[in-house]
């Protein structure tokens, strides 16, 4: 069985094309059914996100399947085959596995190391499993890819550090306060930026959000839009900030609203409770000197962007470590794939032994016919167990061999020693003929 990948991604196709090649539009399940109906694949998983559309397939005839899947991608999405031909990539076996592992690890993402992709790969596999489109090969390669994603996340810094300004703000808040659940946020300014950051904080578990605006009506509207937030009048700003842990300053004011002296006076009754001030206004709302106050952590938009840049640079340094993990897992998968080449021999060996057992039982049928049915059943059971036990160790040995040459040598030896050539073709006549010499030697 061969593993095959056909797809497009942000690396090969412009967004206009990616928008048109979207399997999730009508549901991945339908696409899976449509592809399965064409009969060219044994197993299929479709990974469809806004940055990629990839069909993973296990098949017997890679050449024909490749062409058929390519046609399917064009037909199903109503795109001319010539339009996508330039942007499509096709990978087979270990290269396909490597690609999937890199995708799951976030190495192939637009923002390297982003964590969502692993969940999307898992969802794609789950959808295919539900549609009964996966078998041993895709199960194995996808589960390996989950392991790669997990290892890269825990063993490298590829996913570490926020790479967007709002995530950087949330991650800083976490480093200062730990859990954000009981925290209070004050948003100064009811504009779009403040609202977005507040929404982000809210989604991270912050409970109390207070909106301050020069116009109370405007503040109330924004508070309502955020949901669960309250509005407060402008002249209560000091009291609101004093009761908050995080301040998001995002007004359009031309001059700083929060001077160092003002922040100092707010800090006094708070004693040693830290205050995290995020100044995302341009021009700035908070006097930079306010950051000198002992327990005030002041970050403006430039600072946050700088940390984002640092994080991106740091992620780039982790890429090689992640690639090493990918390579390790590809090798494991390759070993598994090779051990699978022993399976036909194992099956033939089992069939052969079973055939011998059957023919011997048939031969002794006239003697056994005098026995009561329970005793005959016991004879059948015992012979079956003997065969099972004889085969147990060779089967395990054969399956555990991971290097292709040894598998080949073992298979060859077994085929010759047990005359499996005929049995592998499924011929039962040959089986009976070859049993004869053994039968003759049996003591009577």
């Amino acid at each position, binding site marked *: 069985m061969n593993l095959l990948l056909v797809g497009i991604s942000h690396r090969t196709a412009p967004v206009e094309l990616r928008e048109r090649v979207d399997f999730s539009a009508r549901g991945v399940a339908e696409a899976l059914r449509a592809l399965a109906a064409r009969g060219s694949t044994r197993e299929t998983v479709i990974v469809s996100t806004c940055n990629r559309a990839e069909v993973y397939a296990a098949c017997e005839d890679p050449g024909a399947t490749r062409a058929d899947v390519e046609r399917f991608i064009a037909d199903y999405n109503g795109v001319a085959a010539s339009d996508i031909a330039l942007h499509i990539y096709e990978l087979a076996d270990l290269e396909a596995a490597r690609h999937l592992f890199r995708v799951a690890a976030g190495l192939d993402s637009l923002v390297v190391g982003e964590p969502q992709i692993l969940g999307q790969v898992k969802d794609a596999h789950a959808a295919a499993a539900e549609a009964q489109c996966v078998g041993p090969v895709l199960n194995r390669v996808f589960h390996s890819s989950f392991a790669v994603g997990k290892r890269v996340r825990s063993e490298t*810094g590829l996913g570490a550090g926020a790479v967007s300004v709002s995530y950087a703000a949330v991650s800083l808040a976490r480093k200062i*306060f730990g859990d954000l659940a009981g925290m209070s946020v004050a948003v100064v300014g009811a504009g779009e930026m403040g609202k977005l950051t507040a929404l982000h904080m809210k989604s991270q578990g912050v409970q109390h959000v207070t909106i301050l605006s020069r116009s109370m009506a405007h503040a109330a509207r924004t508070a309502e839009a955020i949901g669960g937030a309250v509005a407060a009048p402008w002249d209560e700003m000091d009291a609101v900030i004093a009761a908050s842990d995080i301040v998001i300053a995002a007004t359009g004011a031309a001059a700083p609203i929060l001077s160092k002296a003002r922040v100092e006076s707010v800090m006094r009754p708070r004693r*040693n409770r830290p205050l995290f001030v995020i100044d995302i206004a341009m021009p700035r709302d908070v006097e930079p000197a306010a950051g000198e106050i*002992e*327990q005030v952590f002041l970050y403006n938009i430039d600072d946050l962007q700088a*940390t984002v840049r640092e994080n991106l640079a740091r992620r780039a340094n982790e890429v090689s470590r992640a690639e090493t993990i990918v390579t390790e897992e590809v090798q494991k998968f390759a070993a598994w794939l090779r051990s699978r080449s022993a399976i036909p021999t194992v099956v033939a060996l089992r069939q052969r032994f079973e055939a011998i057992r059957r023919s011997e039982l048939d031969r002794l049928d006239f003697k056994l016919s005098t026995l009561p049915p329970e005793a005959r059943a016991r004879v059948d059971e015992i012979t079956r167990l003997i065969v099972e036990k004889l085969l147990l160790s060779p089967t395990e040995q054969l399956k555990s061999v991971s290097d292709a040459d040894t598998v080949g040598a073992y298979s060859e030896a077994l085929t010759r020693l047990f005359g499996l050539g005929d049995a592998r073709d499924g011929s039962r006549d040959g089986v009976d003929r070859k049993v004869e010499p053994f039968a003759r030697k049996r003591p009577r």
Partner: protein
Amino acid sequence: MNLIPLALYGLALVAYAWHFAQRDPAVGRAATTLLIAAALAHTFVIGMVTMEVGHLPVAGATSAISTFVWLLALSYLYVEMTTDERAMGVFILPLLVALQAIPALRPGIEDRAAVLQGPLFGLHVSSLLFAYASFALACVIGITYVLLFTEIKAKHLGFFYARLPSLQVLDRMNHRAIVIGWVFLTLGIIVGAVWAAQARAGFGAGDPRVQAMSLQDPKIFVALVCWAVYSFELFAARWIGWGGRRLAYLSAVGFCIVLLNFVPISYFLTRSHDF
């Protein structure tokens, strides 16, 4: 015999440092396993000595250090397991290794002076050793707090930012360690004073060391200085509103005094605690 725990502490230190640098979870687990092995070996050593001499080896300065290292290792393991936070290990292990080197390289025979007797003596030493272990943890937590605080303030989120728990958590852990340490320090000092009074009046009347047990003795004086420092720290946290960096520094200063009292003063200066 103290060499085996020392070697294991050394290995654990290497593993903790490696884990801190590389953040490989397997190395982290190995580090914890090594430290547990070291603590077990150390427990065995202390258990053997205890069986041999019939009491916990705390009477001489050298064996008290060994027992202190053992208590600190156990306290740290407790903190690591309850908080699931390994980052502190790389700071605590050097202390364990450095202190354990003293009993390992300079083994002293645990012979308890006849005057050191009674349940109060055991309580005095063990509460103080436990208090010192708490202060050691507080010091290390304080140092990590300052490191992280500095990075966040300087807006260079890097090495420690990625490795340490949040400031709030560190602050809380520091405070808790100080409270526990202060309670045991207070207990240890009071029990010691009561014991000294009893000894002076009775079984230890003729011993010059018992006679030297007064505020003029450097060991006792510095212990009271420690008590004053930590009392002030708790007072400042509760009533002045001190927190964060100031308390972290104070924890470090406090433990430096503890360490001063524990090693050089015990060996070279004290007349009252020279056992």
